[in-house]
């Protein structure tokens, strides 16, 4: 099946928001999605965007049963390692179930890696849920390392009231 991978435009945000929710359903946490296409438009397309996004699109004749031609996306942003320098973090990689197995996921992550190399980034980082075996297998087959398993790194987070309380103590 032919498909294209292009940088997202502001008008893609409704499709991206739709697919973000589909991915959250797959990760069993749909109630955690709190932003809409409006925040995506505001935060992704100003002079200092918070993220970059690629969209996978199929021709009209291959549109989904609900009529969508934008069928996958990868959302990423630039980060920094004080040991190695510029890095990229891939926040989301998603292809609609009926379009899997056609190389779109691989093309999306490969394009993120290509953009990362062009920007002189030395690492591509992301996270995967430990029960998500198909995704883990896919990434490990591409040469990714599981740093939690290998080195013991854990993600920690402050949010909500704990974040407010912490900020109030700033000098």
């Amino acid at each position, binding site marked *: 099946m032919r498909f*294209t*991978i292009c940088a997202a435009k502001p008008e893609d945000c409704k499709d991206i928001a739709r697919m973000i929710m589909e991915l959250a359903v797959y990760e069993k946490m749909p109630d*955690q999605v*709190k*932003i809409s296409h409006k925040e995506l438009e505001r*935060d992704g397309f100003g002079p200092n965007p*918070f*993220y970059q996004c690629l969209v996978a699109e199929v021709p009209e004749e291959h549109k989904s049963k609900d009529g969508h031609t934008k069928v996958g996306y990868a*959302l990423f*942003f*630039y*980060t*920094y390692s*004080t*040991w*190695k*320098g*510029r890095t990229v*973090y891939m*926040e989301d990689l998603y292809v609609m179930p009926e379009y899997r197995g056609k190389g779109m996921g691989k093309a999306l992550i*490969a*394009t993120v*890696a*290509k*953009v*990362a*190399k062009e920007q002189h980034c030395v*690492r*591509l*980082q992301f*996270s995967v*849920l430990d*029960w998500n075996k198909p995704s*883990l297998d896919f*990434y490990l087959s*591409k*040469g*990714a*390392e*599981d*740093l*939690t398993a290998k080195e*013991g*790194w*854990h*993600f*920690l*987070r*402050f*949010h909500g*009231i*704990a*974040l*407010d*309380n912490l*900020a*109030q*103590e*700033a*000098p």
Partner: protein
Amino acid sequence: MDIITKTLFVMELAEYEKVSDQVKIAQRDLEQDGFSKNPFFHGIIAEVPEHLKSKEDSCMYFFTGHTKVGYSLYFYTYSSWKGRAVYMEDLYVMPEFRGKGIGKALMSKVSQLGLAAGCTQLNFTVLDWNKSSLDFYLKQGCWDVTSDLGYHCMRCEGDALEHLAQGGL
């Protein structure tokens, strides 16, 4: 920010995390990447008055006479579920200045700056054997996303990143 001090802090933190051979960037990289028009990171420094400057030598590096005694390096990220977020890459206080609230003050300042920028999360990572840091953070009210939800940190670099990029459209 004092880049020479910052570079030496990065080395001290790497020593603590037992991975100093992994540090590959230099002072010039920090200058270029932190102080251009679209910086890759932001930093804050903790400084003490002259009469409290450092006295102890630190393993391979001689750190007497310093007033800049801690730092935090952070950058803005994005959650596709919650929007703007801030990631704290490093938090470090020289050993002789610990236990005085400096680490907490640095982290609080990053939170304050993050909230002011419209962020709803402060994220970072900790090594699972680093019990003193884990206890410090959990006591401040954060939660362990890896333990609670099962998220694993993944990375592609070197040859794996090259091969991956060659498949890009």
